[in-house]
């Protein structure tokens, strides 16, 4: 089973090699996940003394030991940058010792034990054969796709084609896997047109089509809506039921990893604890890892291996649904479209400006929008007669299922998209006719993919970009303050692309915060953040609201919305409803 933390003994010798009986050399025949015999014996073992990427000086992984039992769910938990992905790719043959980095340790699969010393005589892993036994699904499911197959069926078949499977077998196998993953109705679709949840299931289908004994899933629930979460969890329990060992890498204790048989906690590239969930859920090691602990919300569909302790423990204290202080007292600066150069320091605001009802910082008046028809059919309007008013200091959350038009709505707020009917007003002024780059002075929008936003050589330069024009001599201080607000002061000289994804997102947030917008718009800000990141995000939102910034955030996660916002709205059918 899973042992971690070789903190007591120098060299972990307890489990290691798969000493378990007759190593199953059966498999053979094209794909059946259930060929492995007794559930519970270790099919995959990894003993990693250290793994260092070529070109790096510090090891990415150190003293990690994993043993994966068949037919069971194992969870590897850790915050952003804890080494989960490196571990997952290493045991799945995506990162190969010798080619990608230097490994000192041993990998055991199906009765074969490979010893690595980091020298030229080390065995070389055959990626195709190894991955046929250990499937890996990356966090970005699109990276799994070949990009050269035009239908879902062909994409699933890609792995079989390369192995020379005869066509009749291939057709049968694709149909079976499609049934298993719930893709049977989508076999003729172009993979590029799938939704996030469908894409995730397609990636899993691609990984299990060769009938692996072990399946490693990297953040399988990231950015899925409730329906997608239930489908993926159901799929996982079906796979474990069929005898496949499933390893989930996650930075959140959610409904998927709670029922796992074993947890392994990673922190800073090393294993700090391992054991059954009920022993670890309250442990100090878990608290240190930066793992987010969700309240259980969707338990319906998942058949569980062991009993999941249901703990209602949202980590972040909600501001509750109290009305914003601002609205009651009305001591808000009329920040909005004010020129920051003339009135740079919010600290020098007049103490008290009695105003019974401050004007909304952001107003949408019966906005209607539909994408231009692309010749085939008349486009259904995405937004229909939509109105919204957000006061300074108010936090509004917009939820809705994937594809409801949430991102389209956000793009209207800073002029990236223009409404067909109606108007958008920021601080009382219509933004019609202003270029998006100008509106950005008063509306800060954080996109879902931070990578698209970052282009500088260092974190500090990234945040400082364009600040001089807004703040003059104070630019440097503002940049430092914004970095401090998201906890990146220590990384000021790092290349943004070298940050873990959680920190990249925080950096993108800092670039928006540094400009001190009157309206802060956040697209799925919590996705991919570990607990430390969530705390910084939470504080940034609270502080902004306290300063009188109007905050609009979009999220698929209703519980997060309720915990964060004063008001939760649901976008459906092109309009907003209060929840």
């Amino acid at each position: 089973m899973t042992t971690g933390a070789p903190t007591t003994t120098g060299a972990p010798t307890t489990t290691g090699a798969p000493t378990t009986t007759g190593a199953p050399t059966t498999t053979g025949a094209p794909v059946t996940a259930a060929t492995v015999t007794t559930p519970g014996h270790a099919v995959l073992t990894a003993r990693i003394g250290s793994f260092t990427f070529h070109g790096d000086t510090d090891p990415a992984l150190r003293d990690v030991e994993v043993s994966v039992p068949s037919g069971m769910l194992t969870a590897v938990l850790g915050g952003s940058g804890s080494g989960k992905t490196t571990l997952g790719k290493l045991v799945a043959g995506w990162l190969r010792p010798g080619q990608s980095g230097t490994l000192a340790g041993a990998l055991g699969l199906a009765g074969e034990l490979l010893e690595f010393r980091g020298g030229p005589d080390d065995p070389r892993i055959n990626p195709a054969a190894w991955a046929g036994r250990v499937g890996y699904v990356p966090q970005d499911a699109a990276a799994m796709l070949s990009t050269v197959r035009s239908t879902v069926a062909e994409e699933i078949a890609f792995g079989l084609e390369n192995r020379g499977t005869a066509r009749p077998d291939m057709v049968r196998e694709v149909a079976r896997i499609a049934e298993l993953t719930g893709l049977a109705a989508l076999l003729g679709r172009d993979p590029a047109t799938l939704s996030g949840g469908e894409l995730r299931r397609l990636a899993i289908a691609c990984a299990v089509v060769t009938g692996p004994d072990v399946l490693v899933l990297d953040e399988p629930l990231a950015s899925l809506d409730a329906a997608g979460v239930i489908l993926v969890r159901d799929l996982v329990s079906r796979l474990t039921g069929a005898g496949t060992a499933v390893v989930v890498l996650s930075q959140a204790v959610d409904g998927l990893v709670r029922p796992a048989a074993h947890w392994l906690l990673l922190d800073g590239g090393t294993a700090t604890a391992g054991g059954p969930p009920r022993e670890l859920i309250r442990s100090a090691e878990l608290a240190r890892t930066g793992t987010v602990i969700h309240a259980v919300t969707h338990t319906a569909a998942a058949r569980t291996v062991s009993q999941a302790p249901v703990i209602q423990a949202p980590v972040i204290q909600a501001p509750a649904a109290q009305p914003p202080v601002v609205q009651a007292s009305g001591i808000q600066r009329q920040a909005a479209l004010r020129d920051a150069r003339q009135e740079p320091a919010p600290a020098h605001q007049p103490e008290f400006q009695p105003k019974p009802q401050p004007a909304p910082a952001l107003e949408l008046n019966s906005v209607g929008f539909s994408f231009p028809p692309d010749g085939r059919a008349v486009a259904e309007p995405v937004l229909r007669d939509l109105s919204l008013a957000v006061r300074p200091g108010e936090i509004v959350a917009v939820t809705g299922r994937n594809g409801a038009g949430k991102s389209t709505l956000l793009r209207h707020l800073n002029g990236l998209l223009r409404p067909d009917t109606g108007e958008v007003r920021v601080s009382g002024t219509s933004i019609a006719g202003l270029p998006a780059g100008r509106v950005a002075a008063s509306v800060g929008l954080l996109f879902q993919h931070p990578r698209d936003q970052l282009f500088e050589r260092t974190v500090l330069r990234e945040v400082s970009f364009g600040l001089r024009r807004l703040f003059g001599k104070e630019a440097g201080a503002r940049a430092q303050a914004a970095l401090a607000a998201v906890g990146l002061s220590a990384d000021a000289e790092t290349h943004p692309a070298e940050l873990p994804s959680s920190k990249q997102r925080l950096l993108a947030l800092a670039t928006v915060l540094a400009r001190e917008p009157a309206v802060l718009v956040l697209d799925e800000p919590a996705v991919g953040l570990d607990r430390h990141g969530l705390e910084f995000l939470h504080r940034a939102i609270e502080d902004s609201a306290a300063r009188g910034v109007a905050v609009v955030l979009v999220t698929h996660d209703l519980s997060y919305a309720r915990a964060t916002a004063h008001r939760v709205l649901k976008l459906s059918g092109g309009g907003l409803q209060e929840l």
Partner: protein
Amino acid sequence: MSQQSLTLPATGSAAGRTKAQRNRRLLELGGAAAIAATYLFLVLTQPADIANGPASFPALVALGGFLLGAVLLIAAALPALPTSTLVLMPVALVLNVVLGQLMGTTGLPFYVDAIGTVLIAVLAGPAAGAATGALSTIVWSFINPTVLPFAAGAALIGFLAGLAARSGLFRRFYLAPVAGFVTGILAGVVSAPIAAFVFGGTAGPRHRSGGQRVPRDGRHPARRHHQAGVDLRPHGQGHCLRYCRPAGLCAAAAHHLPVPVRPQVPGARR
């Protein structure tokens, strides 16, 4: 599905490997020979039936010879490339097109439609560079068929950029323009007959070659066409402007890749 070994053989079976290598070497030589022979033929025979109409015969020779050479080079280089290089090639093709487009919309006089080719050549060597150049042209021809005859020139650019990177020319900023200049001249030399004979002596599409037509000189058409084939000056200038800059950019880019990407990108490991 037969049970494959989880590990690869330590050194590879020497006999099988050398045979495959010899076949590839033969294809490579064949491709290079086809291109060289076509070029020599065009220059030596100095086709001059221009007064009787456009040069059908040399056009066919130039088209056939250069295309055949490019295809042979692709067939030789592709199967030997590791997957990590292979996945970069579509990206390079798309960069060629998208960045070319991006530059087009800014209206700046920089030609970056070979930047992807040079990038691959710098990262993965001359063979990959040549294959990228030729393939890039073939894919591009789906949108613009007139680039097809320039496949051989594009392959040469990739090959030379790869050689220059191998010999360390891109490590010194003052050597990169030299490499770009030489590459540009040689690519111009190869492309000139195409522009002259296939497209009737005007500038090739997308400025693939500079204006190589010598203005009216009142001399014998044969001599004039001889010049049309080998007059290097205009292409040299055009091409060196075009290629030295992307080359420098790519060399810089390769050094500034973030650490987690590097192990996956061939050649970026230093």
